[in-house]
């Protein structure tokens, strides 16, 4: 089981190595979800589904604690499309590896993979992709084998604001990378 300081180290690494050298709250949440669900990192979070995708308030708590410790820094910034958060790492990379300890050491390749695969996604794309993965895993645990169209239909019922084409396109992209498990 990971310790708080190790998890804060992982959050710091994610922020520090993201393409922009910082992440928003949506990105941080969904990166942690992918890391745990797609790469098996033992972060100990319990994600459940909301209309805005998989979420666990424990990630925000860790973020708050990381800020209190002086490892993470969070500011409200103005995006072209509105206001959001900018989370950056406040410690040097060499200190981060000490904080992240075994957790960071064991999963550094997996974290790098998440950043490579999803680092350039917009917040909306992250929300959609993570919801597709969540619905796919639900089907898997119910021992269902579903088509990509069925998976997209289920996600569309949760997120009618996304068009069928958008959802299908994202699902196909995940499927091409072998990230869906229940899709036949």
């Amino acid at each position: 089981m990971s310790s708080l300081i190790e998890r804060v180290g992982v959050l710091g690494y994610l922020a520090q190595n993201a393409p922009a050298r910082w992440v928003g709250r949506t990105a941080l949440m969904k990166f942690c979800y992918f890391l745990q669900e797609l790469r098996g990192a033992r972060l100990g979070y319990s994600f459940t589904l909301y209309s805005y995708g998989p979420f666990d308030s424990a990630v925000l708590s860790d973020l708050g604690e990381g800020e209190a410790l002086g490892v993470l820094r969070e500011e409200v910034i103005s995006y072209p499309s509105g206001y959001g958060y900018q989370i950056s790492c406040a410690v040097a990379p060499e200190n981060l590896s000490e904080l992240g300890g075994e957790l960071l050491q064991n999963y550094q390749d997996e974290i790098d993979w998440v950043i490579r695969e999803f680092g350039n996604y917009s917040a909306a794309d992250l929300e959609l992709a993570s919801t597709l993965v969540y619905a796919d895993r639900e089907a898997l645990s119910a021992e269902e084998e579903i088509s990509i169209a069925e998976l997209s239909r289920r996600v569309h019922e949760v997120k009618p604001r996304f068009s069928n084409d958008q959802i299908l396109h994202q699902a196909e992209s995940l499927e091409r990378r072998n990230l869906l498990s229940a899709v036949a």
Partner: protein
Amino acid sequence: MNPSKSYEFRCPIHGFIVLNDWEREIISQPPFQRLRRIRQLAWTDQVYPGAMHSRFEHSLGVMHTATLMYDAIRERSREILESELAYNQDGLGRDRQLVRLAALLHDVGHGPFSHAAEELLPNINGGDGKYKHEQYSAAIVRAHLKDVIENHPSNANYGFKADDVAALLEGSSRAKQALFWRDLIDGQMDADRMDYLLRDSYHIGVQYGRFDLHRVIQTIEAVRFEHDGSLRVGISYGGLHATEALVLARYFMFTQVYFHKTRVAYDIHLRGALKELLPNGVFPKPTTSELLDYLKWDDWRVLGLLTDGKGGEHGHRLTTRNHFRNIYSTPEVSKLSDMDELKLVKEKLGTLVAAEEPASKSWYKTGTPDIRVVSETKGPRPLSSYSTVLANLKANNQVLLYVRPEHADDARKKLNEVLKKDEQSD
């Protein structure tokens, strides 16, 4: 049974709470009546004697508050609900009842003494993640409340399956568009926390948890998060200070009540005693074969076993009120250097340390909630961008160390040595 009849329950927080016949049938079922035998705040009465209230009254309060929130959002945000979530009049009426049922049943899966014992819920499939009480609630709804949900005459108007309620509780894609309302039950600004802050404050006799519930309700609405386009629960600008007070109420309740050093000591003892009392030291799983066994665990059963002298050292400490003593605490907002000092202290005290409790482990821990405020001239902005107080509020990451009372003097001497040494080196 009279489907058209309603029933009023007196509530010290909300005045009267009105239930329809269907809901009254549901709360009459044994799994819900069990909540009368589960205290909301575990052994907090050892510090605040008034804290004897139960999950039963809180559950009614959450249903009432969630309904006020639902009605306010439906009234203020009808257009966006129709355009973004494809709701119509019937759909909104249907999901109002669904939200009421989910709010009413959200805590039906709690174990004895509520959150205090949650650490003893088993691991999921032997992995790192533990089951949460919400998963027990969903399982109980499916297995033990299916009949009363699906076969009550009132359900002819809705056609609900027990699974619809469970899906909303556990957060599943099967909840479909209704998932939007999950924020009212388990979200950043939910009916659960609004009710428990007010209710806990009332029973304990403190003012820390009070805030202007009605002003929050009056200003709540569906808000589109511009950066990702998602629709979430937020507030209009007029509710800014009432919501600020809600966040601060949670902060003060955490520091003054939920993470009170003696209250936390009783959580340690309860967990320790339950480890002795439960078969294999963990609660039964929320599976068909084990759920009935789980439902047999309530405060009364635990208290009976403790009265019989069971529960080992911790059980004895609970019954004799001879709790562990808090010997050392890091600051409420601890820096890395404070954690280094903690490490030194732990090394010096060695086996004298009987327990270590970080704030991060508490169910009531304080993160920074993501609540959006909408003004007429500006788009949605995070609450903290309007509130200097909240912008500077840091999460409590304190760590408390405990020793046995009989070792307290010895531990204090050692602690003074290490802290004095530390002071000299400064």
